[in-house]
């Protein structure tokens, strides 16, 4: 087992935190925020990076990616961040084009390594305000969102983000605002040397407001810069993204949130999202992960802090190569009469590994809870694996809860039926994978986004399956 001292990144973040504390930057931050950072950093120092001995990381061994050195991006004395944008502008533009959703009428918001590129922003809908996190922090009315730790207990990557975050996007939707078009947030990550980027985003959707967001996560030529090439001209630079988003959905508000993750090789993506739902609010999340990144770890935590909320979580992960895709979800039923429904489906190709851990926690006070969860997996190759773990903890007695998990292969009958009509085995498998994914993609309410996701599925299927 690696001790913290063996991990180059551990030393880098300790030094980075010391630099941050010493730098002027902190002088401009409130003492509350400084305390929050300090305590988060202490927690990180205690926990270190997670290993397979930690229950939440049991099936996700990240040791192989922690052997690489990374520079800490976005803090004083560090590197990366906005400055890197100019040098690779062309790659970034190409990445943005890849992320674009055809025929989607949306407000495009571009972030490069977590830094909002304001100059690229068009008009914004009425009632929607966007700020950089740096700006929001200066505003006494908003700084509270950053001064409080997300939950005060987080460890590992979430604590590290809290201690060292620098950039990100703050979104506020006014009470009662009904924007005509969705926001399409395109996150481009790029590096010409090994880099750790830690964006932090806060969305506040006020009472009776509605917000539709599509987030695309892409990389632009990670490791394709001249400096990043080895002596054979092969790209080598790696990027670790440790992102944290907090979403507050106030009473009677509705949020429709789609995430499309298509970062490329040599990307390690750890994405933590905490959603706090208030009375009678609705939150829908659609999460799509495609082949590319070495590691994708999504932590999606839904805190139902008030009664009569509704939550739908839909996920589809398509993993290939040596990829590891891990989805950890938590639906925390704290109050009565909340409804949650979750459907995650996985397709594991080649030598990929999938992890699904879906926890539903029903507190003693949360009577009349309806909580449903389903995880289905299609394991295509003999060398692919899936670890699926549903977890239900129920402390109330008047609830309806169910969960289920399946792991299967192609139906031989269905394959033969398709082949008996002249369809090649590969195409037949592609059709069946698309059919398997259909249960999830059909849930997307925006036709253009659904078409975009279906197109991404066809792009990766069929592959050489074994």
């Amino acid at each position, binding site marked *: 087992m690696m001790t913290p001292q063996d991990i180059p990144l551990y030393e880098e973040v300790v030094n980075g935190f010391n630099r941050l504390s010493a730098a002027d930057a902190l002088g401009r931050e409130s003492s509350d925020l400084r305390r929050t950072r300090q305590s988060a950093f202490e927690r990180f120092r205690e926990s270190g990076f997670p290993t397979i001995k930690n229950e939440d990381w049991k099936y996700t061994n990240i040791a192989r990616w922690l052997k690489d050195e990374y520079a800490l991006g976005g803090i004083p004395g560090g590197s990366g961040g906005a400055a890197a944008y100019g040098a690779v502008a062309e790659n970034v533009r190409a990445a943005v084009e890849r992320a674009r959703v055809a025929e989607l009428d949306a407000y495009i918001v571009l972030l490069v390594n977590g830094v909002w590129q304001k100059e690229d922003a068009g008009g914004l809908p009425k009632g929607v305000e966007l700020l950089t996190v740096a700006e929001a922090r200066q505003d006494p009315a908003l700084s509270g969102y950053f001064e409080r730790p997300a939950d005060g207990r987080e460890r590992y990557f979430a604590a590290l983000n809290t201690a060292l975050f620098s950039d990100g996007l703050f979104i506020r939707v006014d009470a009662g605002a009904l924007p005509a078009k969705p926001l399409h947030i395109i996150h481009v990550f790029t590096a010409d040397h090994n880099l750790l980027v830690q964006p932090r985003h806060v969305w506040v959707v006020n009472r009776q407001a509605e917000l539709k967001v599509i987030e695309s996560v892409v990389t632009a030529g990670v490791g394709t810069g001249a400096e990043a090439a080895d002596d054979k001209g092969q790209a080598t630079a790696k990027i670790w993204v440790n992102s944290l988003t907090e979403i507050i959905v106030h009473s009677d508000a509705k949020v429709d949130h789609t995430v499309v993750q298509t970062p490329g090789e040599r990307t390690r993506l750890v994405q933590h999202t905490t959603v706090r739902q208030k009375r009678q609010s609705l939150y829908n999340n659609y999460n799509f992960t495609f082949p590319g990144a070495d590691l994708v770890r999504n932590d999606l935590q839904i805190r139902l802090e008030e009664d009569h909320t509704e939550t739908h979580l839909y996920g589809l992960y398509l993993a290939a190569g040596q990829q590891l895709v891990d989805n950890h979800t938590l639906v925390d039923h704290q109050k009565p009469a909340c409804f949650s429904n979750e459907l995650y489906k996985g397709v594991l190709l080649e030598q990929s590994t999938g992890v699904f851990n879906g926890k539903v926690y029903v507190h003693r006070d949360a009577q009349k809870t309806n909580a449903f969860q389903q995880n289905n997996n299609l394991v295509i190759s003999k060398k692919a694996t899936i670890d699926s773990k549903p977890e239900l903890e129920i402390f109330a007695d008047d609830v309806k809860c169910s969960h289920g998990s399946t792991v299967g292969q192609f139906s031989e009958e269905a394959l033969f*039926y398709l*082949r008996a009509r*002249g369809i090649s085995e590969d195409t037949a498998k592609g059709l069946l994978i698309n059919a398997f994914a259909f249960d999830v993609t059909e849930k997307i309410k925006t036709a253009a986004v659904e078409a975009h996701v279906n197109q991404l599925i066809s792009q990766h299927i069929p592959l050489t399956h074994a």
Partner: protein
Amino acid sequence: MLIIKNLHAEVEGKQILKGINLTVGAGEVHAIMGPNGSGKSSLASVLAGKENYEVTEGEVIFQGKNLLEMSPEVRAREGVFLAFQYPIEIPGVSNINFLKTALAEIRTHKGLPPLDAKEFLRLSKEKQKLVEFDAKLVNRSLNEGFSGGEKKRNEIFQLAMLEPALSILDETDSGLDIDALRIVSKGVNKLRSANNAFIIITHYQRLLEYIVPDFVHVLYNGRIVKSGTKELALELEEKGYDWLKEEAHENAPTI
């Protein structure tokens, strides 16, 4: 068109076909009848290339080529079509996309360009009408939630779209009410031509009142024990299979 010689096949080590001989010419309709478990559906599966059947002896020549060497998809592209006894439901695969994909692969195999969207639509409309297939079903997921009759009609619709040289109808009449039976038969009769052939596998004579065969064969215990014309089907309807079973046992080679 099709020559089957001394075909032996087994599934999971159990011998099912024990020396089938059958020749089907272009323009002909052959009915294969027989009691349950005689090997009728197995013969259909072996011809279509189902992988859990192992051919242990004999050969099958289709239009001058060795059929048994071909994968199921190549057989289909060469012109063999199996109308399934139990069509599979595949939620999420649209009926029409499935057919478009199948037709494109068959046309590519024949060196023909794919149909454009307009031509495909026209063809689909024409064939729907021909086999009286409900347009609403065309755009639904493949067989999902279809009634038994709708599934069988979908098989005939696919047959009409793909225009195979040899169609094998595996108990297409089972589970059909009399109206559905009439519609399915009418469709098949319209599709009959001097260039194609049909093998109709059925348990009952009923279907053969609508699709009149040129030849009738009785399969029993993995062999064709009697062949004749359509009158044989009537005789079977009247007398059942028992007299043939007895005959077959008398004629069986003794060791």
